Structure formats: structure tokens, C-alpha cells
């Protein structure tokens, strides 16, 4: 299959290795990956912060960038949920009905990574090898908007060498919530603290999830506490093999590997 990769604005800019991992994984499974150059953002941050009018041109750009794509995959439950639940609605509210129809059609071909693997490609064993103790945080939008259910866990259970430990209070929000993390920083931090306590209680080396935004939040907290526990996106684990192993996950600032190409000053 020819798969168009939507990196998402956050992954593209801040954690490119997650998009690389997604591409590597899909190619390894025998699919052609294209990366439409015009892509930027799904518009979720604007919609959720109250700038739904300003989100419309972003939605239009997204629809333009991915027009004609057969299947679109993104390594993010939250962005895919926004594409499914918000894009057409904000366009329609602004009176842009043609755009809304196109966004709806595009949403029908847009998949979150774990759903694409399990439901569309029908694979749970992607041939990955990741010899680490890992706990999985189900992010709110993948859990409650996309209903990905246990698909990520099915994928993780099939990874060789991986020791999967259950996260207590897994379904509680980590406190990220987009601009919530900044507008209500104290409450967000209180939620994060409880999430980190649960992650640390598992004694996992790695906390994984399907959203880099939530991982940036959890990882940012774990790193600040110098906990030594790192956050790694599900795509990076699934892309990892004996030949090409992701030793130091990179979604979080805990490891040094996150500055690709070093810092040349």
C-alpha cells in the first residue's frame, strides 16, 4: 500500500525520530511511504484553545496537502481524533461546506498508527525487538475519542524481548491537555505528579504511548525529577529490531540521543 505519513506539527518539529520510526516501520512491512511536503498541522491546538475560525485555513492546508492520498497515517491519537471529530465541524461552522466535505472524506482514510497496523494491515507482530521493561499509558484521545482499545497492547505483547508491565491508574489523564498545561499549570502539574508516581511504581525503564504530546509532558516531568525513566513513542519501539535498535528512546529529554546531529555551536 502507498501510505501518506502525517508527521504532525509537534513530531515534525520537536521529535522527528518518531516520524522516522513510523516510516521505517511501514517500509519494513512492505509499504511505500510518502511524506507530502505541504503538511503542517491538523488545527487541533487552535480549535481547543478557542480559535476555531483561525483553524479553518489550517484545515484547508491539511486537506490540500493530503488530497489524493490513498491512506494517511499519523503517530498520534490526538491529531487523528481532531481530524475525525473537529476538522469538518469547524469548516462547516465557518460556512465552508466544500472544505468540510473534503475533510470528512479525508478523515475516512486517516488512521492512528496502532489502528492502521491492527485493523487495516491486520498485523500485531511487526517483527520488533525491544529488550526493555516497558509500561504503556493510553492517551485520553486515543482511548476515548478513537477507542483504540488494546491495539497498542496487542502490538507491544508481540515485541520480542519486551517486558510489559501494567500501569496503575492507566486511564487517568497525564495533565497535558494542550494549552491546559500552560493555562492551568498548577493543576496540570498535580495530575502529572500522580501519573509519574504510577509510572515509577512499575519500575519500568520506559513509558510508552501513542502520542508524543503526552510523552513530552510525562517525559518532561520524569526528566525534571532526574528519575532515569524515559518516554519512548510506540512507533519507536515497533520500529526497533536486533539490527536497528532504539536504545535510548528519544521522545523524552532524559537521554542524550535526543539531539540528533549534536549541537554545533
Amino acid at each position: 500500500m502507498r501510505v501518506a505519513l502525517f508527521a504532525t506539527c509537534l513530531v515534525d518539529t520537536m521529535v522527528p525520530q518518531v516520524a522516522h520510526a513510523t516510516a521505517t516501520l511501514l517500509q519494513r512491512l512492505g509499504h511505500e511511504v510518502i511524506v507530502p511536503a505541504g503538511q503542517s498541522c491538523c488545527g487541533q491546538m487552535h480549535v481547543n484553545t478557542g480559535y476555531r475560525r483561525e483553524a479553518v485555513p489550517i484545515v484547508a492546508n491539511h486537506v490540500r496537502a493530503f488530497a489524493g492520498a490513498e491512506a494517511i497515517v499519523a503517530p498520534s491519537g490526538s491529531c487523528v481524533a481532531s481530524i475525525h471529530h473537529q476538522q469538518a465541524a469547524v469548516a462547516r461552522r465557518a460556512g465552508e461546506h466544500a472544505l468540510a466535505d473534503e475533510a470528512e472524506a479525508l478523515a475516512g482514510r486517516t488512521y492512528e498508527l496502532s489502528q492502521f497496523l491492527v485493523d487495516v494491515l491486520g498485523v500485531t507482530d511487526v517483527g520488533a525487538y525491544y529488550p526493555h521493561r516497558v509500561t504503556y499509558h493510553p492517551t485520553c484521545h486515543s482511548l476515548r475519542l478513537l477507542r483504540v482499545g488494546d491495539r497498542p497492547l496487542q502490538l507491544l505483547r508481540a515485541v520480542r524481548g519486551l517486558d510489559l508491565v501494567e500501569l496503575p491508574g492507566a486511564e487517568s489523564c497525564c495533565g497535558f491537555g494542550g494549552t491546559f498545561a500552560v493555562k492551568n499549570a498548577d493543576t496540570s502539574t498535580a495530575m502529572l505528579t500522580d501519573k509519574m508516581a504510577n509510572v515509577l511504581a512499575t519500575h519500568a525503564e520506559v513509558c510508552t504511548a501513542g502520542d508524543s504530546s503526552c510523552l513530552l509532558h510525562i517525559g518532561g516531568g520524569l526528566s525534571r525529577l532526574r528519575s532515569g525513566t524515559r518516554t519512548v513513542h510506540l512507533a519507536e519501539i515497533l520500529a526497533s529490531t536486533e539490527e536497528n535498535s532504539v536504545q535510548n528512546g528519544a521522545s523524552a529529554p532524559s537521554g542524550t540521543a535526543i539531539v540528533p546531529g549534536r549541537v554545533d555551536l
Partner: protein
Amino acid sequence: MTAVFLGIPTAPAGVGNLRGDRSFPDAARDALRDGQLRANLGHATTTIRGKRAGVVAEVPDWAELREAGRAIKAATMARLDEHLIALEEQVTARGGTVHWARDATEANQIVTALVQATGATEVVKVKSMATQEIGLNEALEAAGIEALETDLAELIVQLGEDKPSHILVPAIHKNRAEIREIFARTIPGVDPHLTDDPRKLAMAAREHLRERFLRARVAVSGANFAVAETGTLAVVESEGNGRMCLTLPQTLITVMGIEKLVPTWRDLEVFLQLLPRSSTGERMNPYTSLWAGITPGDGPQDFHLVLLDNGRTAVLADEVGREALHCIRCSACLNVCPVYERTGGHAYGSVYPGPIGAVLSPQLTGVEDNASLPYASSLCGACYDVCPVAIDIPSILVHLRAEHVEAQTRTTPEAAAFRALSKVMSHPRLWRLAQRAAGLGRFLARGRPTLPAALPPPASAWTRTRDLPTPPAKTFTQQWAEEHGS
């Protein structure tokens, strides 16, 4: 929004309890530091969440019941005016008197005048959100009438000169040791050896209340439901205090929000299954009182129903926000909310806290009077999942954020930034430039994997408690284009 709706009045300021005096983030900051509050809330919400999940899971057709509840509410709201007239006719035909109150001020005046006409100087009260909303106790007190709360938790709040912090369990923020202290300090003649045993505390309250029930001539209640076709009012409760108030006094005054009605008797079948399981986590609540007008020689001989608008018509006019009127006040959304669980109810400023409060209060008052509440959520969606009438609270929160943004007449720095970003994100060439500029953030890191913790606002709101990784030298799309051409 559509100009045709302008002019429908919202709940007036200066009366009632729908507005706090601080923004949510400000009030939350203090609440989060209260370790005892956090412990009490964590314990209580965890317990009730578990109970609810257990009794909901055993209902095989819960999803269908929930959909039925949603559909009945939506259909009722679409013809609310007709149903209200029908209710008035039925209540009147059965010997009751119906009063229409535009807002809190009018409702308080009506109730005060009704109590004064009886010559009574005290009333007993059934727990009621509507009367808390309009500040009835304060209005009665100003008229020299004492209002005694008879619901145990509401009594604890009243004796402690506190404010309710939960829709169902107003004293959820207090533990039993704190309740013992309040009782010991405030109940006249209380057993000096009172312990914090829940049974002992309940008995102390019962003794305090019993004599007042027997001598009360006037009771004030709210209503969980009103049936338009029969003129029946319904109150569901756990303690039996409501039953006492609804049957013993000569005069009964019920204050009810106009959204509380259902068209037919049969509709109760759905809601009386949804409500107790969602609220107290019980299969059925212990007491369900139903009455229509008056029955000669039995119960109150003078019944008044005060129908309260107080901003509800304005909510009904908003095609997205009106779903908030479907709420049956079960408080399941509060119990699952990760924000509420940590900040408690007082931080919301309004008598309606938690997720439903965050969508209801700003709509009743006008969003600018409660502008921080729609942002008091991480949009995790747990509230929508548990809501027994499927109110899409996250979508309403997002809608109200937009209403707030669009109500601004001056351009805020945030709005300027979001508008600029919109332009950039809708033009790929500008976006690539902006990404490259973001990459320059790595110079701040001086070779370290994270940015400095001391950054200027608004970045500091993040970096105070969380590290921010150093941006990579190249974005994914940039590197991909270099490797694959584009």
C-alpha cells in the same frame, strides 16, 4: 453567534452563587496545596467511582438507557415552552400554585413573600441545587427567616459556615474528624463524647433535626423531575429528611429550574434507573417522593411551584451549549474528573463545579463572567463517557472557549500569536521557516539535551515543573526531503 439570540437575559450578578471572586487557576493553586483536601477528595471520589462502575456494569442495556435519556431530554428541550404550560395547567388543576421567576432575584422575592404570608420565621429545606444557585438562604435570612438545611451533608456545610463543593455530596471536602469537630462546636446540647463514627454523627444530626421537622410549618425543596402530563414533582434522596420535609409541614414551596421537566410519567422509568446508579452508585435510592398538587387531609395543604429561568432560556438558545440543560445533576462527571479530584469544587466559584459546572455556569451567567471555567479541563473526555444522558461536555467546553475568544473586542497577545500561527501553518513555506526558527531554540540549550528551566512566560508555565527537550537541528520533513527529494 447569531444576532437573533442577543437580548435573552443571563443570570444577574450580585445575587446567588454562580460566580466566584477569583479565576479558576488562581483558586486552584491554593486548593492544590491543601493536603487534607486532596486526601479527602481522592478517597471519596475513588470510592464513589468504583461503586458507580460496579452498578452500571451490571445493567445489560445501559447504553440504550443512556441513549433514551439523551433522546427524551433533547425532545423535551425542543418543545420546552409547551411542556411548561402543560405542567402549569396540571399543577394548578391539582390545587397547586405555579409562579414564574425570570431570575434569582424574582425567585427569592416570590419565596420570601410566600413564607412571610404564612407568618413562619423558619423553614426546613430539602437539599436543592436551584435554591443554592439563587442564594435563597441568604435572601430569607435578610428577611428575618431562618432556613435550616436538613440533608446531612448540606447541614454540615451550613453549620460550618462553609460552601458546598459537590453537587451530590456538598461536604465531600470534609472528612469525618472534621465533621465531628463542626458538630461538637455548633450543635447545641450535642453529646460531649461525640466520636467520628459515621453512625454516631448521623444520630447527632438526626436528633438536632427531628424536633425542627416536627415544628416546621413551611418546607422548601427543589425537584429532580416534574412530569408535565400529570403535574407530578419528584425528589429522590437517601436519608429520608426529604420525605419529612415534603410531608409534615402545611406549606411546601418547590423551586425548580425549567429544564427539569419530562413530558410523560413513563419517562421517569428511564431517569429513575439512570440517576441513582450514576450518582450514589446505588441500584435504587432509598426514598423517592412523588406528589401532584395537594391531597386534602394528607401532607401539605398549600403547594407552590416556582419555575426558575435564571439564564436557562439563554442556554437553550445556544445550539451547541444547550445540551448542558440535559443534566440530571447526578455528579458522575465530577467524580471521574481528574481536575475536580485535585482542586475540589470551591475552585470553580459556582455552586455547579466540575465538568458540568464548567459548561453550565458560564452559560447561565454569560461566558465573560466565568471566562476561566471553560479552560478548567484537559479535555480528557472521562466526563462524556460517564454522563448518563451523554452530554458531550468536552465539545461544549471547546465551544465556550471560542465564544470567549470571539467576545474579545481588543486583540490579546494570545490572539495575536494564534492568528499569526494560523497564517504560518496554512502556508507551507512560512511554516518551514517558522520550524527552522523554532530549531534555533537549541542555541539556548548550549549543547544540553533540555532547554533552561528559566524561560520567559508563557514558556515558564511549562518549564517551572517540566523539562523541555532541546529542538533538533533538522525537522523530519526537512531531512526526509533531503534524503528522498520532494
